[in-house]
């Protein structure tokens, strides 16, 4: 009967189901709606230069949100995301400034970030401590360590390789930085991992039902560890992108990155309870935040009112997403 009624409903409903069922369509529609509204309030919004700027502004949080998505899919949360990224910028900067080969410096920095992921992942998978507390603790530890290392505070990083990701390249009249391209490549690669490999399946399974995952023989601990390490590795890459955008290593940067990246993930339709959602939604979520900030400024809205409007629009965005998915 089921297949019969499916047929009677016809292709139409199948296509609709395919789209409505895909969790990132809701956020996409919201993004397009906001884009439309802003382009009406100020035609400059759609200028290629402005669009390219929005993309560039999304690079750091957008990249960090890749790792955050992985972790949230396993029903975890990462409060140390900004701190680990800053660790990367400070180490790379310090090493390069003290004469290391910049490629080696960046490599070591990414390695150090990954090590922070190893620490978080081991505590979470080995001792089964709540990710909230572990990453909060690691946030405190890294923040303090960074202040100790870089006693005097921020310092400029002028090395060409470290800043390379900020260079622009013209694609079809559209100017983007290498940083944007690298971010999009990372999205593509992690999307592939999540959706086309066994590892990705297991990420969803562990987030959706950890006990079932354990019972069917998925090595839950090892999987969690790999997720935290991969995420931290990505934060390390984000550090490189951050140096491209701001050639300055500041131990106090990115303080709101944890909230910002989680926001992108949740607006993108991924559940904080794990196992449901996806990476495309996160990219759209990060763009929604960027578009809001840029669009409201272009619309000439006072920054004090901007926070207010952003607060409302974030709720509206998720409400619209909910509606497009239909009720229960």
């Amino acid at each position, binding site marked *: 009967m089921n297949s019969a009624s499916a047929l009677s409903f016809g292709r139409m409903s199948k296509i609709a189901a395919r789209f409505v069922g895909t969790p990132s369509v809701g956020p996409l529609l919201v993004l397009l709606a906001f884009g439309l509204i802003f382009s009406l309030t100020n035609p400059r919004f759609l200028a290629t*230069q402005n669009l390219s700027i929005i993309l560039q502004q999304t690079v750091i949080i957008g990249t960090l949100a890749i790792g955050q998505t992985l972790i949230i899919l396993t029903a975890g949360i990462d409060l140390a995301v900004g701190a680990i990224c800053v660790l990367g910028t400070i180490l790379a900067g310090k090493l390069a400034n003290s004469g290391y080969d910049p490629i080696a410096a960046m490599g070591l920095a990414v390695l150090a970030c990954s090590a922070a992921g190893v620490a978080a992942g081991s505590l979470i998978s080995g001792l089964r401590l709540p990710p909230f507390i572990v990453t909060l603790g690691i946030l405190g530890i890294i923040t303090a360590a960074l202040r100790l290392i870089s006693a005097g505070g921020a310092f400029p990083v002028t090395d060409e390789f470290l800043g390379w990701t900020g260079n622009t390249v013209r694609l079809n009249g559209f100017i983007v930085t290498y940083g944007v391209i690298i971010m999009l490549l990372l999205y593509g690669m992690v999307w592939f991992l999540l959706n086309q490999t066994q590892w990705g399946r297991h990420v969803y399974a562990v987030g959706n039902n950890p006990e079932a995952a354990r019972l069917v023989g998925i090595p839950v601990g090892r999987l969690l560890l790999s997720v935290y390490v991969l995420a931290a590795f990505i934060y390390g890459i984000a550090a490189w992108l951050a140096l491209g955008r701001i050639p300055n290593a*500041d131990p106090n940067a990115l303080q709101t990155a944890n909230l910002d990246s989680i926001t992108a993930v949740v607006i993108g339709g991924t559940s904080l309870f794990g196992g449901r959602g996806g990476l495309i939604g996160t990219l759209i979520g990060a763009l929604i935040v960027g578009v809001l900030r840029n669009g409201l400024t272009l619309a000439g809205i006072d*920054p004090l009112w901007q926070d207010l409007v952003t607060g409302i629009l974030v709720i509206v965005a998720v409400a619209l997403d909910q509606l497009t998915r239909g009720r229960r």
Partner: protein
Amino acid sequence: SAEEVIVGLVTKTEVNPFFVKMRQAAEEAAKAKGVKLIARAGKFDGDNEGQVTAIEDLISAGAKGILVTPNNSTGMLGVIKKARDAGVLVIALDTATEPADAVDATFATDNFEAGVEQGAYARKALGDKKPVLAMLDGTPGGTVDTFRHNGYLKGFGLAEGDPAIAGSAITNGAQDKGQVGMENLLSKNGEINAVYTINEPAAAGAYAALKSFGKEADVMLTSIDGGCAGVRDVKAGKIAATVMQFPYKMAAMGVDAVVDYATNGKKPSGFVNTGSFLITDKPVEGIDSKNTEWGLKNCWGD
């Protein structure tokens, strides 16, 4: 033997290089005098509760004197009274309390005056161009933020809400947010030719944005703080001028005062202006300024 003298230092945050420098200067001074410094800070601009907690802990720890940069001019009054009642010398650094005699003494800069200097310079240097101003604020509502912002407008000769103000953005004094704010403001209005910044990191962010729009030469970008990185940016021509303040002076004087009090029982009093100077290599007539050479000798940070 007498107990070790403990000097408490409570800054607004550990985030801002200005306060980092203040703490370092206090540490050096404490070391030189052979006293123990315990430093604490709020977690963010506006963390009154964190500062109150810190002062309470320092009283508990037996501090002889406490140097505090209050988050706002009235927030700390109760706990400061508690400290003074317990015989602790309290000196306000950088920001005065209201009333000013709530503390024993105040060693500070006049932030409003610093803002006026910045604004006056910017207006003069702009010449006869019709000003189109962008303002990169810190954290709205903060005492320092308000003083600098209002001072700038006064010095620039504009009233709040004047149409010449093309827009403003909240940067929290951070470089990344300064950059995003400036980019979006430039997207909105390409005519911007003057930019107020709350501090030098925000100015650095603004410069990066200006540069990516190819406008770095046409815009009068000014700032306040006097960190060495900022002065170097002035020297490199990225920032036209900055107003230097002297956090290390405040801290060192504060530690000295506490030690003096511990040994001689002598309390300082009143408002001591530690001063501010406009730093620029493109002086304009009628406004006092020092060049970057002087600036680099007297700047803070590294």
